[in-house]
């Protein structure tokens, strides 16, 4: 069953009960993860300004999309993820520690993705079923389709979720990946986190259409555009897409999100973006709307919400110190693993 299109949900004001298949504990847990993601994301940005983190891409504003879909994948239990460089929240919430995140951003030994060889959180985290070889835009898409093909060959039921931005939709490889997945009806969910910018390039210079989701029809599979600031909506759409993908083949899910920060720590979005755009966007901050929803639904108290923020800060503090004191990768590793044995 294809997921339903968009949810008209005001700033977290739920129009109904929470999904039956989620417990309050699930939601409270995910709220805490989101708070932790936000706290570490902000800290990383600050550490960049202090010269301790060379580069970072923020997922602030994308958290509902990333964590809503992650929750659906976790609940399903047999999903494999190919995220992209903006998926800090996704990768962190998938299960590595705050210290590991920090080691990765500082280029220290013990970075779980590449042991300090790559940009932060890039490489692979196989225990958490994640691969992201590079930050070359759209390069993961065909790989994710190949992964799904292999699972199918092996008789496995795995559904693959691959993440990319609106800019990535222009790459030829995105087309090739979707086309192949369609021909072979592979269980792949193409999740486009559309924040309407590719660095500075606005959507109208990127494509001649309003919705990336409109591409799906040209391949012969369903495509939906949903509100990517709505955690529950993203969860539900992904859950339905997982079922649909496993039964019938690919789904394109466009999650409309907002990029709160500049493209990366190297960027300054004041060059190309009207200042009130971000102020506006922050009105719909997924951390706040999700928190409000859980408050309204009685899942969390205000005190618990405050606690979550404080706990997050404490965890990030500890992680920062630990990573800062950690050793760099040994110089001998430069020459290792060019080839696998």
């Amino acid at each position: 069953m294809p997921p339903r299109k968009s949810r008209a949900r005001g700033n977290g004001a739920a129009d109904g009960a929470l999904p039956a298949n989620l417990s309050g504990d699930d939601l409270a847990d995910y709220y805490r993860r989101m708070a932790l993601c936000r706290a570490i994301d902000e800290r990383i940005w600050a550490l960049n300004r202090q010269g301790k983190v060379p580069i970072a891409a923020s997922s602030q504003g994308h958290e509902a999309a990333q964590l809503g879909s992650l929750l659906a994948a976790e609940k399903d239990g047999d999903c494999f993820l190919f995220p992209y460089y903006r998926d800090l929240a996704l990768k962190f919430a998938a299960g590595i520690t705050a210290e590991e995140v920090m080691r990765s951003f500082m280029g220290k030994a013990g970075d779980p993705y590449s042991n300090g060889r790559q940009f932060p959180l890039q490489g692979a985290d196989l225990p958490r079923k994640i691969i992201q070889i590079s930050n070359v835009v759209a390069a993961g898409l065909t790989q994710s389709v190949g992964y799904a093909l292999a699972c199918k060959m092996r008789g496995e039921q795995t559904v693959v979720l691959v993440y990319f931005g609106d800019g990535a939709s222009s790459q030829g490889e995105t087309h090739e990946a979707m086309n192949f997945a369609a021909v072979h009806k592979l269980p792949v969910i193409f999740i486009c986190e559309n924040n309407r910018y590719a660095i500075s390039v606005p959507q109208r210079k990127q494509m001649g259409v309003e919705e990336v989701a409109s591409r799906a029809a040209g391949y012969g599979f369903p495509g939906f555009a949903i509100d990517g600031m709505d955690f529950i909506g993203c969860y539900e759409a992904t859950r339905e897409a997982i079922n649909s993908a496993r039964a019938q083949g690919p789904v394109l899910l466009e999650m409309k999100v907002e990029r709160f920060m500049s493209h990366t720590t190297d960027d300054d979005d004041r060059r190309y973006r009207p200042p009130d755009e971000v102020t506006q966007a922050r009105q719909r901050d997924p951390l706040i709307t999700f928190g409000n929803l859980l408050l309204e639904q009685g899942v969390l108290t205000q005190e618990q919400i405050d606690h979550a923020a404080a706990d997050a800060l404490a965890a990030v503090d500890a992680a920062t110190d630990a990573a800062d004191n950690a050793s760099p990768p040994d110089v001998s590793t430069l020459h290792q693993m060019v080839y696998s044995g």
Partner: protein
Amino acid sequence: MAVKSVIEAVREAIREEMRRDPTVFVMGEDVGARGGVFLATQGLMEEFGEDRIIDTPLAEASIVGIALGAAFRGQRPLPEIQFSDFVWPSVNQLIGEAARSCYGTNGAVQVPMTVRIPYGGGIRGGLFHSQNVETHFFHTPGLKVVTPSTPYDAKGLLKSAIRDNNPVVFLEHKKTYRLVRGEVPDGEYTLPLGVADIKRPGNTLTIVSYGLTLHYCLEAAQEVAPEGIDAEVIDLRTLTPLDRETILTSVRKTGKLLIAHEDNVTGGIGAEIAALVADQAFEYLDGPIARVCGPDVPTMPFAQTLEDAYIPDPTKIATALRRLAAY
């Protein structure tokens, strides 16, 4: 032992490896019912079915990218690029991604993928069906690059490539496919990647080559032998890993080196061989290092006259051998 052509040896290697290991599968344009445009996969769809011999859409980036993703999940893909000239759309996946997958994940991810690519010219293919692409892969750490010249080598090396856990670019010179025939043992055998083969021992000078040009070198060596020029002819067989020791040992013995290949001379494989020797065997050198290679034009043209003029053939090689021997 039976006499076989290179294309038969290639097909046999694929078939044997597919029988041996259910994770091996073929994908590419026209590899199915058509059996590949050179018939390397002829009959395989009948034996292994459409799920293991996959006719892909016409899109090389996806052929390699999808194979790479399948390798991540433990399959052993054998993608085919129909002609080397069409590999360019795929190099983002091959040079950019596949070559860095192991290194970039600190060894977490393996890439047991072998990309087969018919390459080279001499078949009236013109500018877009004759290209030599080996140097681009040779200059990419993380890839292995294999360039067999005989049926025996092709089979043994392809089997090893398929079993290797690294991305291998397996380059089959398309003119050798039917032209070059030779004995191939009936039973199972493999040849290690990274070991050159002395196809003709000799003492006067060393020739280093690979692929089709290797045969032209042997012809040239034959031609000058009666003149007392006793050339040692080394077939690199694999460009990466490069068997530096065999080259150096030979040059330290002969004191003279000629490298021949079809690819453009400037910045080709011959440049690295020359650099290696000029550094590591400098004291043994009795003459300048010579190269007989394709000229620096965008590969060989279509007209017979121009194609012939491009190719480093036995006559051109023999001339260079005489000059070098006389030095």
